[in-house]
């Protein structure tokens, strides 16, 4: 990772922070699936003033009670590295990997989108859904529910278009992300820094 000399990360140093290298990072965190583990992770972010843009959690290995938490957060590199170390010292955390550092990770999200309308608007919604590879999972005479899977930015675009096509409501899962190539999280280098 990059360390920029002379940059401060003190909570007490109240000078304007340089926004220059702030960007969003996708962290993959392997944890014991035990009561309170999510509260520990979320509490760490709120308690230390880090932000969470998206958080997804689900058990991935039932036998060994392991869950994978995918967190999207923003910050400058030293802050991101501090977040990773803070996560790393939680007792139930096995591993923290920064998929953004690892480069070009696979990031997917699923959304369910309900639109309502008749006539031209309804036809337009259907045409756009086809163009975006969204599936129809429910239909009535004046409504559709589309299911779309894709990179968050693609979903953002589709949702944006649906606003003009009678968007009623939507639900998004948050991010699921993996690195490319043959290595899994257990063989990836641990908390970098």
């Amino acid at each position: 990772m990059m360390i920029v000399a002379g940059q401060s990360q003190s909570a007490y140093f109240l000078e304007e922070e340089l926004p220059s290298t702030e960007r969003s990072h996708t962290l993959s965190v392997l944890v014991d699936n035990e009561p309170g583990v999510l509260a520990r992770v979320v509490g760490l972010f709120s308690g230390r003033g880090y932000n969470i843009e998206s958080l997804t959690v689900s058990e991935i290995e039932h036998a060994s009670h392991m869950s994978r938490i995918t967190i999207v957060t923003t910050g400058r590199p030293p802050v991101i590295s501090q977040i990773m170390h803070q996560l790393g010292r939680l007792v139930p955390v096995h591993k923290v990997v920064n998929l953004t550092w690892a480069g070009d990770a696979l990031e997917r999200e699923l959304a369910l989108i309900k639109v309502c309308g008749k006539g031209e608007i309804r036809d337009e919604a259907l045409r756009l859904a086809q163009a975006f590879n969204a599936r129809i999972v429910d239909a009535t005479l004046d409504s559709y529910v589309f299911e779309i899977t894709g990179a968050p930015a693609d979903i953002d675009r589709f949702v944006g278009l649906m606003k003009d096509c009678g968007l009623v409501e939507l639900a998004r899962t948050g991010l699921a992300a993996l690195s490319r190539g043959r290595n899994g999280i257990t063989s990836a280098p641990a908390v970098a820094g």
Partner: protein
Amino acid sequence: MTRQMTGAEMVIQALIDQGVDTIFGYPGGAVLPIFDELFQQEEVRHILVRHEQGAGHAAEGYARSTGKVGVALATSGPGATNMVTALTDALLDSIPMVCITGQVPTTLIGTDAFQEADTVGITRPCTKHNWLVRRIEDLPAILHEAFRIATTGRPGPVLVDIPKNIQFQTGTYENCKGKALTQYHPAVKGPEAAIREAVELMAAAKKPILYTGGGVINSGPKAVALLRDLVKLTGFPITSTLMGLGAYPASGRNWLGMLGMHGTYEANLAMHDCDVMVCIGARFDDRITGRIDAFSPKSKKIHIDIDPSSINKNVVVDLPIVGDVGSVLEDLIAAWTARKPMQDKAAHAAWWKQIDGWRAKRCLTYRPSAEAIMPQYAIERLYALTKDRDTYITTEVGQHQMWVAQYYGFEEPNRFMTSGGLGTMGYGLPAAIGTQLAHPGALVIDVAGDASIQMNIQELSTAVQHNAPVKAFILNNQYMGMVRQWQQLLHGNRLSHSYVDSQPDFVRLAEAYGAVGIRCSKPADLDDAIEEMIRIDRPVLFDCHVVSLANCFPMIPSGKAHNEMLLGTDVTDEEIETAIGAAGKVLV
């Protein structure tokens, strides 16, 4: 070897298996089964306190003065919430502590039951780790894991919340001491390449400094001995944080005194001007760094710390070495000895000359008085009269705490128990009791302030009950002196609510508790009064009347750099009031 027993018996058995001889606690409905077991055995001594916060701080004092884990026990609800301050204190100061709390039965959790509180929820951010035990099968492993987590890596408080029905249930106990229940295994050994690089940097240094902290004491006696070897081997000057005092002896030739906001002139200027800084088990706290962008601008920084999150948290360093101080110093000294570096003798001599110039400022000089006791003088006398004894010092929080750090010379580690990170008024008296019970023959003194001592004064009753002859040496300035000093610095000397009106008569208060009260207000009487305090083999409240308006100097005003210190003897009231700019005022 496994045995059948109840949950409450398991708690006691696990304590015994962990080698715990003393715990501090307070009973209540949700821990009655554990108290019943305590009653029926003799291996674990229970010290009944008067407030659960006192139990927590007593456990901290016990832990810091022995290097062992401190154990506290409290009931559910208010018992647990009263423990929160002590847990937070232990977390910030890296004190290994295990706290056991009772909880309402599992069947009642979530129903707003009598004395129900979400203890694990409340204490999650103020413990290193915590558990609510839901099944008797899990209890033995969790109890032992609590001790392992409290003591390994960066030490800290661990809480185990045990519902009352689990305490009654019978299950299989196994002594799983040392077995890991979780995957928590912090690295102890530092990477070889980094250690070799550190040797190169240190060998080439022209203006080196060792900046040491509480991590050396956390690491233990081996680390302390190695640190002293390192100073001998390299000839480097050494300073320490408040939390690290005693790791290197204050009488040592290379000692510069404490650094930081109330540190010495020589320590802070040497930090500012050094070219190689070796930070050993310290965490670049804001009391140390002052203005971050002006902090030691010309130095290469090496940072040895067991917690990766301590590294680059506040200050970006050039060479991090993650590992235990003892282990890393051992490897570092071996590498140094093998390399036999040629140091730049002329540069080192010039550096020491510069340091001696700063020392010549004699920054701890204060204006003496023949009529009234100067607080600095009181600490000097206390030091002179106790240094040749087996003495342990605790403090409360405020000016008196800083004067102890400045004027009391600590020669050994684990002799100074103070609340550094949280700055908890009310820490000192219970911590002294915990210390005294761990060291029965020793002289244990809580140097207190007149305001702080009242925050946990009820523990005097604990000291009387358990024959803990602790001495509370109160520097009574009739003010919350530290607050008053900041109001003078920041708020036009408008002393809003920092005067302690209606003080109790401390002598009669002591007597009411069955302790001994001593009062002294003349410098000429002070030595005799201190000697009398030492002679009394009972708890003492010593009401030492000192001048009211003394300020604690030197001081780096907040928002300022190390080379912008205020010194005591030549500073005027006006300089004090204008020392902190607008940007500094928002800092704490």
